[in-house]
């Protein structure tokens, strides 16, 4: 390539490239010039910008990585939350069932207790009523006996002794009850 250039430019200023202004000293100077230009641009111009862009790219990549990690954590957390909620629901349902069962058995016991209590009250009431009735009947019998004896005494005009009174009472009561 350089040979090609040399052939084109030689002898200096009179080769093929000579009329176009090509000159070896200027060409070499321009090569050095251009290399310096590239080095200077790389150091002072492109270097800092490229560094910043790479830094930003790395930061964006890091951000994306973090975002992915956060998304994964969020998904895991949601999964854990859902599992915890499901477990809590399960526990709650179990507690409700247990409470329901417990309440049902308690209710049954209380009902039975109430029934027993009611039956006791009923039995007591019946006994009281029976006693009262017997008392009333006894009183009635007594009054009825007195009445019959008084009536008999008035009808017969006879003074009745206790024995007569008892006998008349017994007879009258036997007829009434009979």
């Amino acid at each position, binding site marked *: 390539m350089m040979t090609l250039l040399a052939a*084109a430019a030689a002898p200096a200023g009179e080769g093929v490239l000579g009329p176009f202004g090509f000159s070896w000293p*200027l*060409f070499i100077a321009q090569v050095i010039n*251009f290399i310096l230009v590239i080095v200077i*641009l*790389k150091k002072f111009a492109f270097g800092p*910008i490229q560094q*910043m862009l790479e830094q930003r790219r790395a930061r964006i990549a890091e951000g994306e990585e973090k975002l992915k990690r956060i998304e994964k954590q969020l998904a895991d957390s949601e999964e854990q939350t859902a599992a915890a909620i499901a477990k809590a629901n399960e526990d709650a349902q179990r507690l409700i069932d247990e409470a329901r069962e417990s309440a049902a058995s308690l209710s049954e016991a209380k009902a039975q207790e109430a029934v027993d209590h009611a039956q006791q009250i009923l039995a007591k009431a019946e006994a009281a009523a029976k006693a009262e009735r017997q008392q009333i009947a006894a009183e009635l019998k007594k009054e009825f006996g007195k009445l019959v004896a008084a009536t008999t005494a008035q009808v017969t005009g006879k003074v009745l002794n206790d024995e007569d009174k008892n006998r008349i009472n017994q007879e009258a009561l036997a007829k009434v009850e009979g």
Partner: protein
Amino acid sequence: MSRRPLISILLLWLCSLGPALAGGGHALPLHAPRLSDYLPINNSMIAVWIAVGLIVLFCRAATKQMKLIPSGIQNFAEWLFESLYGFLEGLLGEHLTKRTFWFLGATFFFILTVNYLALIPGVGTAGWEVLDEKGGETVGFTPLLRGGNADLNMTAAMAITFALLWFYWAITENGFKGFMAHIFAPKGDFSGVMLVMMIPVFLFVGVLEVVSILIRPVALSFRLFGNIYGGEQTLEKLMLLMPHKALHFLPALPFYFVELLVGFVQALVFTLLCAIFLKLICDHGDEEHH
């Protein structure tokens, strides 16, 4: 008056001033005149260093207080940088772009700045008359500055530097054996007699490829030099079409805008061709099979 018409008028004035001062009746010589008898310095080198200074100043301003969330000039610089990086990445792939962007990116912005600097009024026109030995008559004109890419030495220097880097990248990417095989070895699935018959064909193709590789820097340098030098000459010659000096700018004015476009396109073409030449030698053809 609002700001927009003011800017438009200023731009129009600048654009008119450009071609008006661009030639001044002096034909731009093919060679950039040396400014020193002892040092190999010409006026295009001065323009090149001014362009580099401008780029460095811009980049220093953009990177002075770099923030992770960019704004203002940093944002603009990063946009320029990332746009070109993304464009080259689409062409070369991630690995090669990361490896070569310092050269390709710098070359693009350098050529672009040098091309636009050449269009600034005064570049190529502000200078001094060269008098004959007796000091009586004017025999020439030496501009203080000349468009950097209107000097074949500059474009050739860029092309040669790229060519040397191309060899370096090609050999380090492929290995020397792979590099030679890339040029001379038969491509395709040949075997037996067919392979034996194809070997001389591909050897001949390889020789043609070598010639093509040697021609590339010449083509690169002459394409850029020709377009930029031709553009400057066009502007100067067009101005001479008008008889009155005050109207010299008028025929050149539309072409001034064309030159703005040419300046960008040529920077892109040079960078793009460098990238394509690099891709051609470093491409292993893997992508086709995926």
